[in-house]
C-alpha cells in the first residue's frame, strides 16, 4: 500500500507565470512519454517479474514516477496560477482552458488526454524491461526538447533534475535486464 508524504522530491519555485511554457510542459505529465504513463507502466509490469531485484526496481522507480507527476503538476500550477483569460488566450492555452480552466489535467501538449495505449504490460520480463529502457530515453528527449523551448531558469532547473532521473532509471533498468540475461 501507499503512504503520501507532504513534500516534493525536488523544490519547485517559479518566480513568474508563463502559460505558453505550461502548454508545452503538460506533455511531461500526460503525454505518451510522460510521468503518469511511466508510473502506470512500471507499477503494472512489476507483478509478474521473476525476481525480487526486478520487482523491487520496478516498484521503487514506479513509485518515484508518482513523485515526478507531482513535480510536473507543481510546475503547471505555478506557471498558470492567477493568469487572466486574456493572458491564457495570448499564450495559446485557450483550447486547454476552455475545458480545464486552471485545473491540472494529464494530456499531451497536442491536447490528447493521457492514454494507457502509450504503454504495455506484456507479462514477458525481457519485452517489458526493453520497453522501460526505451521509455526512459524517450522521456529524456522530451525534457531535452523542453530545455530547447524554455529560457526560464526556474523551470529549467527542475526540468534538468527530472531529465537526470531518466538517465539514472535507464541505468537501473539496464542492470535489472542484465540480471535476467547474464
Amino acid at each position: 500500500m501507499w503512504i503520501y508524504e507532504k513534500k516534493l522530491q525536488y523544490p519547485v519555485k517559479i518566480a513568474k507565470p508563463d502559460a505558453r511554457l505550461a502548454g508545452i510542459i503538460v506533455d511531461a505529465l500526460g503525454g505518451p512519454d510522460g510521468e503518469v504513463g511511466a508510473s502506470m507502466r512500471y507499477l503494472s509490469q512489476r507483478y509478474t517479474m521473476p525476481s525480487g531485484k526486478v520487482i523491487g526496481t520496478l516498484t521503487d522507480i514506479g513509485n518515484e514516477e508518482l513523485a515526478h507527476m507531482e513535480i510536473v503538476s507543481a510546475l503547471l500550477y505555478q506557471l498558470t496560477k492567477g493568469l487572466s483569460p486574456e493572458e491564457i488566450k495570448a499564450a495559446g492555452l485557450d483550447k486547454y482552458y476552455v475545458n480545464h480552466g486552471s485545473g491540472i489535467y494529464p494530456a499531451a501538449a497536442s491536447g490528447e488526454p493521457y492514454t494507457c495505449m502509450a504503454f504495455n504490460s506484456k507479462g514477458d520480463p525481457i519485452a517489458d524491461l526493453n520497453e522501460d529502457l526505451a521509455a526512459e530515453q524517450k522521456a529524456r528527449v522530451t525534457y531535452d526538447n523542453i530545455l530547447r523551448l524554455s529560457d526560464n531558469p526556474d523551470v529549467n532547473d527542475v526540468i534538468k533534475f527530472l531529465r537526470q532521473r531518466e538517465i539514472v532509471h535507464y541505468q537501473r533498468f539496464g542492470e535489472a535486464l542484465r540480471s535476467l540475461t547474464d
Partner: protein
Amino acid sequence: MNKNDTDLMRRIQELDFAMVETQLFLDTHPDCRQALEYYHRLHRELEPLVVEYTAKHGPLTPSAASTEGWNWIDGMWPWQTENTEMRERKR
C-alpha cells in the same frame, strides 16, 4: 508464515486501515478531539507491531531495511502467496 505471524500481519492491516478511515474522517472533521485521540492511539498501538514484524520478516518500508544487508528486495511481495509461488516453481 505460521499462524501467529499471519495474525500479526492481520493486526497491522486492521490498525492501518482504521488509521486510514480515521484520517479521512479527520480531513472533514478536523476539530473532532475524539477522532484525533483515536488516530494517535491507533498509531501508538501500530508502531511496536511493525517493529516486531520487521524483525521477523523484513522491512515494510525501504528505510526499515537491515543495516547488515539490503533485504528490501527479499521475501514475498504483497501480491504473492505461498500457493502462487509454488505454482510458479512447478511450471
